[in-house]
């Protein structure tokens, strides 16, 4: 009797504890699953946001392109100044010739200004005076916000680059918010036209911007011949993506990226240009020039030609036509690379 009793005593407790254990387990698992579900749902809502935002970005891009064919020419504005001219005057004139900043930038837009601040050397980055001048000019259009954002090349610290080059100080003084994009979360964006890659991770600030102003410095580049507008957009993607671009096919990836993450307005800082070698350590030439356009491809073509002229290349146009990423961007319909179809307005400020 006794042993069976003990057994009887034990067995109910045993079953209960097992049952409670199972109950707890089920509760735990379901709790976990619910938590996961929420997690899972949260990005999904963001995802839907992504697609809508992407769609609007693409829309503006196509709008930019249609400007070309309807007027049968794409306008690129070149404003030359006297030696050591004030960048503000050059930038203002360039924007005025493009139609005026109030007409270009929609009121209340959230603007991303993307300079090239990938390096610690002042020669290799967009002149902070140009960045500040662009910010001041854009403020006249009464935008919602202006963010100056950049992520340096892998191995360089963006915050340090922003500070040592003076970009942070001058851009903040001009009234922009300056962001180290590396601190941003990355979001995925589809590239429907992409030939080498079909989607790309970009920083959230970039995706959430309704108007992108690209302000690169005119430079030579070891891997892509030149780095101007199209190449400068590589600062909008995280390091992992920059690495992938190099692994896959750099020129095509740059073109693919620009097919969706495309600047609405480009203002090239060619006050000084880096010739012969780049993106660092090249020979600096004073051009006292600012080039602006709504078409990043056409702007790259015109700017690259100026760069080759400054180097004394015998056939600058031929050299431009051999720059892979510019030609590939034109093939994707991002802009016009055919020099004969680009109308250039060349102005010299007295």
């Amino acid at each position, binding site marked *: 009797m006794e042993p069976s009793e003990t057994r009887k005593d034990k067995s109910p407790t045993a079953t209960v504890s097992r049952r409670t254990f199972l109950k707890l387990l089920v509760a735990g698992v379901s709790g976990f699953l619910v938590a996961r579900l929420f997690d899972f749902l949260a990005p999904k809502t963001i995802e839907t946001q992504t697609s809508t935002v992407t769609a609007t970005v693409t829309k503006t891009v196509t709008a930019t392109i249609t400007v070309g064919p309807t007027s049968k020419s794409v306008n690129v504005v070149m404003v030359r100044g006297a030696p050591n001219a004030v960048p503000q005057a050059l930038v203002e004139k360039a924007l005025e010739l493009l139609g005026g900043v109030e007409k270009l930038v929609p009121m209340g837009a959230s603007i991303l200004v993307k300079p090239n601040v990938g390096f*610690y050397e002042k020669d290799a980055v967009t002149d902070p005076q140009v960045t500040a001048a662009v910010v001041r000019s854009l403020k006249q259009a009464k935008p919602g916000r202006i963010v100056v954002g950049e992520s340096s*090349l*892998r*191995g*360089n*610290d963006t915050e*340090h680059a922003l500070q040592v080059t003076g970009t942070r100080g001058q851009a903040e003084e001009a009234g922009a918010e300056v962001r180290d994009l590396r601190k941003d979360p990355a979001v995925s964006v589809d590239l429907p036209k992409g030939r080498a890659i079909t989607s790309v991770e970009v920083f959230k600030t970039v995706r959430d911007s309704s108007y992108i102003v690209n302000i690169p410095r005119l430079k030579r*580049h*070891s*891997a*892509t011949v030149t780095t101007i507008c199209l190449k400068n957009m590589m600062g909008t993607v995280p390091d992992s993506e*920059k*690495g*992938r*671009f*190099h*692994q896959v*096919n*750099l*020129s095509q990836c740059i073109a693919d990226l620009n097919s969706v993450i495309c600047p609405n307005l480009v203002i090239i800082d060619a006050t000084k240009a880096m010739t012969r070698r780049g*993106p*660092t*350590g090249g020979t600096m030439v004073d051009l006292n020039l600012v080039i602006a356009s709504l078409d990043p491809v056409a702007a790259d073509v015109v700017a690259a030609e100026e760069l080759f002229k400054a180097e004394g290349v015998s056939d600058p146009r031929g050299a431009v036509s051999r720059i*892979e990423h510019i030609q590939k961007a034109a093939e994707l319909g991002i802009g016009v690379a055919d020099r004969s179809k680009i109308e250039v307005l060349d102005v010299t400020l007295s």
Partner: protein
Amino acid sequence: MKRREFLKLFGVGVAVISLSDVFPRIIRGKELVRPPGALAEDALNAVCIRCARCAQICPTGAIVLASLSDGFKELGTPRIDALRGPCERVQGRCERQAKCAEICPTGAILQVDRRILKMGSAIINADRCIAWRGGSCLVCYEVCPVQGAISLIDEARPIFHADICVGCGRCVYACPAQPKALTLTPEGERRLLPV
């Protein structure tokens, strides 16, 4: 009893396996890339008190502490892991002063003029290099802070000059190839003898 025996055997087995891998290295010690201005190897191992302050203050996270697999004598001393970050003594946030040397309480790492600094050199495995395999890359050349350390053949393929390279590891960190085409070695390093 059986359980105890099993655990004993298991313990011995684990110990043998782990030691067989580590033992030779514990005796010899691995060749490590050290922080800028680190004392000569024996002096460093003797003077360093393993306080880890250099690793904590390194702005790029390049300084890590040597593990047992790096050698018994070296255990807990600072080394540069270029995969975690580059050394910015030559260019960047430590340009004026090496933060690791500044914080070192025992003088195991000293301030050395960055013009005579050499922590080692980067070497390239061309089979893994994107540029050497016909792709377009040259990120190493873009990020190199020392002019002449990397030169180009046909403006497309990088050649590394170990005599000019200072071993900051920036190219190694930035190399987008997978696996990396570049490794940082202490080859040619200049180290200090304690005063």
